[in-house]
């Protein structure tokens, strides 16, 4: 008995009635090619679902909520105008992000609007001039050292803004990863990355270039993370980013897993 590829796909998707299912299951036992086709359809479905599953766990940006949550606002917030187009939505978001950047440098306001990235080995980008290297290879892993490691250890509460010091490390969003370890996003020099605490070290699974916007634009670039880093955060984050108190508590534990 032969089945069309569409029918085998529908079987893999759980779309057939019991009689059709039984016929295909019989055919799969008799014909390895049919079984392989079904397996291929199932594997693709599972892979695609897995590729997007993490998005469900992301905190939903406040601007998407049907009604603005009543929250105390230190500064009056203009009512969001109805949005007519993606371009208008983007403009509104940029304006909002500019305001947010003045309040506190935190995720998810780190939109990656203008920070285009070129990825690769960016070690040199971390330390302009003759500063000691901020990262090193250790046992097959890339780990933070020097000023970067110190900033990852110390900075909390989004207090990483060091004015125009382009070489300084700015630590932003912090969160507990699914494996319980703490991870922190950072921008240093013209590079941005993610560091995750492993024992006594900060391992760096992702490093990307954060390009500044025009001349003297470092400060804005410091408020953005390139998509590669945001995606790496998506892939790891369990729950929501830590608030300032959560960061302080994690620092008090030496960034060791609390659970």
């Amino acid at each position, binding site marked *: 008995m032969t089945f069309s*590829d*569409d029918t085998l*796909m*529908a079987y893999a*998707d759980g*779309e057939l009635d019991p009689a059709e299912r039984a016929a295909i299951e019989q055919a799969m036992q008799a014909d390895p090619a049919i079984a392989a086709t079904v397996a*291929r359809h199932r594997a*693709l*479905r599972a*892979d*695609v*679902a*897995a*590729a*997007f599953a*993490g*998005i*469900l*766990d*992301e905190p*939903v*940006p406040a*601007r*998407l*909520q*049907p*009604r603005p949550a009543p929250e105390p606002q230190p500064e009056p917030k203009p009512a969001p105008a*109805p*949005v007519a*187009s*993606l*371009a208008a*939505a983007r403009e509104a*978001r940029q304006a909002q992000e500019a305001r947010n950047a003045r309040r506190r440098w935190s995720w998810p306001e780190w*939109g*990656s*609007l203008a920070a*285009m*990235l*070129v*990825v*690769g*080995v960016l070690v040199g980008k971390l330390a302009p001039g003759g500063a000691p290297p901020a990262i090193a290879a250790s046992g*097959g*892993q*890339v780990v933070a050292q020097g000023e970067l490691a110190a900033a990852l250890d110390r900075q909390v509460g989004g207090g990483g803004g060091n004015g125009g010091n382009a070489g300084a490390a700015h630590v932003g969003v912090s969160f507990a990863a699914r*494996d319980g370890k703490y991870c922190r996003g950072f921008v240093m020099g013209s590079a941005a990355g993610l560091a995750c605490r492993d024992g006594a070290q900060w*391992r*760096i*699974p*992702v*490093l*990307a270039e954060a390009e500044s916007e025009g001349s003297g634009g470092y400060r804005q670039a410091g408020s953005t993370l390139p*998509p*590669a880093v*945001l*995606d*790496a955060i998506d*892939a*790891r984050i369990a729950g929501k980013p830590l608030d300032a108190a959560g960061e302080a508590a994690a620092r008090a534990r030496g960034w060791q897993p609390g659970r």
Partner: protein
Amino acid sequence: MLADEIAALLPRMRRFARALTYHREDADDLVQIAMERALGRSDQWEPGTRLDSWLFRIIKNAWIDEGRSRTRRAELFAPAEEGEHVGDDAAQAHQQRLALQKAISLLSEEHRLVVGLVLVDGLPYKEAAEVLEIPVGTLTSRLARARDALQQLLADQTDKTRRMP
């Protein structure tokens, strides 16, 4: 409250939009536009019908309406993902997920819609066909072609990776 029910569905709407637009910010812009439309037309939703299908259809229509003007930033990122991760297995698994998202972004708009509804969200064929306002038979054959195209894109990616020194 309809608004509360819509709020509860936002994570799925964001995920679907991400399958269509690839880029996080574009996806959230799309969801924002669609949610504003949905609330503006809430009288058009018939209680007792599936709210998720109705919202998916509004997102689909908003995406098609905006399609001509939207930026295709995804393409700017195309060559950039090789070698961005150093180290661990989790990062490698993450890179595979990124590769799939990337491949889906290269599908035709029609194919992205069926993949987004059936493979990403897991809607049954019947519901997906209703969202797209097409017969189930059309949905089925379109989905089969979309899968073929996606397999081909993934195979091409693998070839490219193998050729890397």
